[in-house]
Structures are given as structure tokens and as C-alpha cells.
């Protein structure tokens, strides 16, 4: 069995989560932002699995299956939206899609 301390496992999931957060904040390309959201979802699921293994309960794996379903829906909707944005604006830059902002 794995004897890595629980803190190290949670730290690993936290590093992955913050890499995703940094990517989401830094990148302006919508595909990259969506990828960063995927990384964050994945690290959240990793924490569920770690906790489920630690307490030897199946609930963590059940939660991961739910996260998987939510992620699949989110990705398909977001990619359809990205396609529509690209057809409208001919760019994937999220700063270009600011028509709701006051133009002053």
C-alpha cells in the first residue's frame, strides 16, 4: 500500500489546482482558459479520491463520477460557445468579447 503522507498527497493536488488557477488568470486564449478549468476540476477530483482512500469509503469515487459528468457537460457547452464566438469575432481572445462593457 501507498505510505505517502496525506499532507503530501493533498499538497500535490493543491499544486495542480493552483497551476490551473494561474493558467486561468494569465492566459487570454479561450481554449487555454478552458484547459485550465479542466486542470482545476481534475485536481478537485483527485482530492476526493485521496480522501476516499484515506477513510476507505466509496463516497469519494462516487463524487469523482459526478465531477466527470459535470465536466463532460461543461466542456461540450463551452466548446460550442467558443465556436460561436469564433464565428462572430474571428478571434479567440476573451478580451475582444467585451460588447457588454461601457465603451465610455
Amino acid at each position, binding site marked *: 500500500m501507498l505510505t*505517502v503522507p496525506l499532507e503530501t498527497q493533498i499538497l500535490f493536488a493543491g499544486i495542480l489546482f493552483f497551476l490551473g488557477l494561474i493558467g486561468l488568470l494569465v*492566459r487570454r486564449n479561450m481554449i487555454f482558459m478552458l484547459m485550465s478549468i479542466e486542470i482545476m476540476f481534475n485536481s478537485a477530483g483527485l482530492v476526493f479520491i485521496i480522501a476516499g482512500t484515506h477513510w476507505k469509503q*466509496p463516497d469519494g469515487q*462516487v463524487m469523482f463520477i*459526478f465531477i*466527470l459528468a459535470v465536466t463532460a*457537460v461543461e466542456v461540450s457547452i463551452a466548446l460550442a460557445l467558443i*465556436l460561436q464566438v469564433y464565428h462572430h469575432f474571428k478571434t479567440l481572445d476573451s478580451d475582444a468579447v467585451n460588447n457588454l462593457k461601457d465603451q465610455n
Partner: protein
Amino acid sequence: MNVFFYIAGVVAIVSTVMAISGRNAIHSLLYLILSLLAVSVIFYLLSAPFIAALEVIIYAGAIMVLFIFVTMMLNIGLERETEKKWLKPRMWIIPSILAAVLLVNLIFALKSGQTIPSDKEAILPKQVGISLFSTYLLGVEIAAILLMAGVIGAYHLGSQKKKVKHRFLEIK
């Protein structure tokens, strides 16, 4: 035994950094797939083999293929010239090395024989299924409704209609 966890963790973090810092979307997606595979190895080491298989099949298999399809659709014009550049070894040598490290890691973890958890310690797919369809039955039904809404929404958003734009919304 623990060294397998650390190797897979390092591969996951390195490939995630490469994924979010890359310039080219396709290369970043390949690094992201590698990151998901590394996390899948970690799931296996955490005695959740069912979830490890789901991660490879659904995340790396289905969701990332969707990403790659859309990315390929969006820059279909530039592809002819860049295709030659993509086939150079410089582009795929680092992901290949990382994937090879992961494969060797997995083979050694399998051969060591210590990773196969005993029946008392592992959480088997049977337990997960029983819990999923008894305690969390309501959640399964809500997920089904969500998936249905996702199908309808993706169909609606993805269909190419002739758009009538208001004159204020036109791009100059």
C-alpha cells in the same frame, strides 16, 4: 513503493506547467493529456483502479478528443504550412520522454506486486456501484437531467443559423 507516486507526481506537474505555458494549443493539449495520464497512474496507486480506468477513457479519451477536434476546426487555414513544422522531432520529443517515464513507472509498479491492494483495503467497483445507486440515487438522476440539458444546449449552440444582427452589435 512511494517512489512511483513521486515520479508520477513530478510528471503530472511538469506536463501541466508545459500545458498552461505553451504557445500552440495542440501541443498544450498533448501535454494536458499526459498530465491526465499521470494523474490516472496516481489514482491506480491510491487503490482506485476503476477511477483510473474512467480517467483514461473519459477524460483523456473523450473530453480531450473533443478539445482537439475544436482546435483543429478553428485554425484550419494555417495548418498546411505549420504541419511540416509539427512533424519535427523537437515538437514531440519532450512529451514522448515524459510518457515513456510514465510507462516505465507503471510497468515497474505493476511488476513490484505491492500495488495490488488486498480485498479489505481496496474500494472495489462493486462497492462504488452499490453506493452510487442507493445512497446517491438522487444525484444520479440529477446528473442524467444535467446531461440531457447539455445535449440540448450543445445542439442549440452548435447549430449554424443565419443570424440577424442588430446594427449596434455589428463589428466594425
